[in-house]
């Protein structure tokens, strides 16, 4: 990071607000606030205040996520470059992974391409019903199907259970242009708003990193956060207040920037040849 000119910073692990994303459950702190699920909001506030390229590496916290590749407390490396485009940050991610794994990353591909190759369905164009039907045909659908029409649900299900396990078999691979269904703080493609300028990196079927061309417009951010809050409310889940400080920073002016978040424990586990997180954690959740 130092060689690449990226400054290490530490932003608070206790925040007054929690991100709105429907897929994130934050741990509340008794005296007020939440433990951060990622340093994103703090880092973006620094960028809005004029910071150059910055990174933070340290623990982040996500409630309810424990399993072979999940631990509610895990180590995240997250960095942002102002004035960078998403392709620049993908290049940098591939270089970092190459250096740490000793392997050359597989050629970049797109979500549409990998999804199509496994399912025969175009994830951007096809009807939600077609996704549901495919999932059922392949015995992947859960028994009670109240969310027939939630496109993000079907995409996540098929991606996680059918497509992802095939990705990055011999070397890490970056998959670009994720569907915009669940995009909150990322820019959508200028030519097609169904596609987000977001990528993920996989190795041996495990998701290692998630990066994007970051959303700069505060009004759009607020709208999308409100949408996530509605989904949470409808699902009967806790609705944390919006991060007004981040929104204020974005209003003041977040420069065009790209960023990536990488799961360090997962990368370490795979580099060491393990097939789960437990061996690289001093005390995993069950043994803490």
């Amino acid at each position, binding site marked *: 990071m130092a060689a690449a000119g990226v400054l290490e910073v530490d932003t608070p692990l206790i925040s007054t607000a929690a991100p709105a*994303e*429907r*897929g*994130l459950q934050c741990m509340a702190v008794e005296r007020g606030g939440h433990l951060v699920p990622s340093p994103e909001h703090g880092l973006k506030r620094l960028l809005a205040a004029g910071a150059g390229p910055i990174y933070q590496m340290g623990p982040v916290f996500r409630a*309810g*996520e*424990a*399993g*072979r590749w*999940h631990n509610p407390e895990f180590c995240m490396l997250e960095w942002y470059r102002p004035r960078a485009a998403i392709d620049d940050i993908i290049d940098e991610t591939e270089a970092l992974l190459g250096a740490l794994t000793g392997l050359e990353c597989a050629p970049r591909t797109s979500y549409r391409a990998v999804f199509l190759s496994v399912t025969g369905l175009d994830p951007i164009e096809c009807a939600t019903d077609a996704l549901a039907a495919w999932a059922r045909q392949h*015995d*992947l*659908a*859960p*028994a*009670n199907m109240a*969310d027939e029409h939630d496109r*993000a*649900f079907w995409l*996540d*299900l098929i*991606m*996680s*259970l059918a497509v*992802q396990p095939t990705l990055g078999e011999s070397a890490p691979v970056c998959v670009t242009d994720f569907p915009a269904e*669940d995009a909150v703080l990322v820019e959508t493609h200028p030519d097609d708003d169904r596609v987000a300028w977001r990528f*993920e990196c996989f190795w041996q079927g495990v*998701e290692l990193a*998630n990066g994007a061309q970051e959303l700069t417009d505060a009004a759009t951010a607020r709208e999308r956060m409100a949408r996530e809050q509605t989904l949470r409310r409808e699902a009967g889940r806790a609705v944390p207040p919006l991060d007004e400080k981040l929104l204020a920073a974005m209003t003041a002016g977040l420069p065009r920037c790209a960023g990536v*978040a990488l799961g360090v424990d997962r990368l370490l586990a795979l580099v060491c040849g393990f097939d789960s997180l437990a061996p690289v954690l001093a005390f995993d959740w069950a043994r803490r």
Partner: protein
Amino acid sequence: MATFNTNQFKGGLKIILDGDPYNIVENEFVKPGKGQAFNRVKLRNLKTNRVVERTFKSGDSVEAADVFNLDLQFLYHDGEFWHFMEPNSFEQYQAGEAAVGESAQWIKAQDMCSVTLWNGTPLQVDAPNFVTLAVTETDPGVRGDTSGGGGKPATLETGAVVRVPLFIEEGEVLKVDTRKGEYVSRANEN
């Protein structure tokens, strides 16, 4: 009706799916970074023994199966049912052919068996790992005959047939490994 939530899933948990009792063999938590969580679960149907894979949405609830194991003493077989008793409460249970299965050929009166009960009815009977049974019928071994190598068949008091070394004679009591269906040793050797 007792239920379990997906975040309680782990190997050994017993649940009801489509009306049948299942044992969770493996539970995998799956979650894309920004997406919804699922549980991909391997389960064994406790009636048919078939293993299936199912997906559950994280946070969903399933019906708990009233399935547990008891150590019961085998009493007798009446031609149709095998009768067992819980030695402390003296409560009796009867198990059908489907539940007793392979164990039928190994158990004799007073043997303690691990019995899986579903809603109070025996679902599966496991014979002890090792049993001692007398040989009721076998050809006499020819002393010094080591050319056979494979031993000879012997019928045991329960009707089971196992291969035994040539030196074993009728009336001898043997130790048998019920999981492999194999002779281990004479009962008094150790």
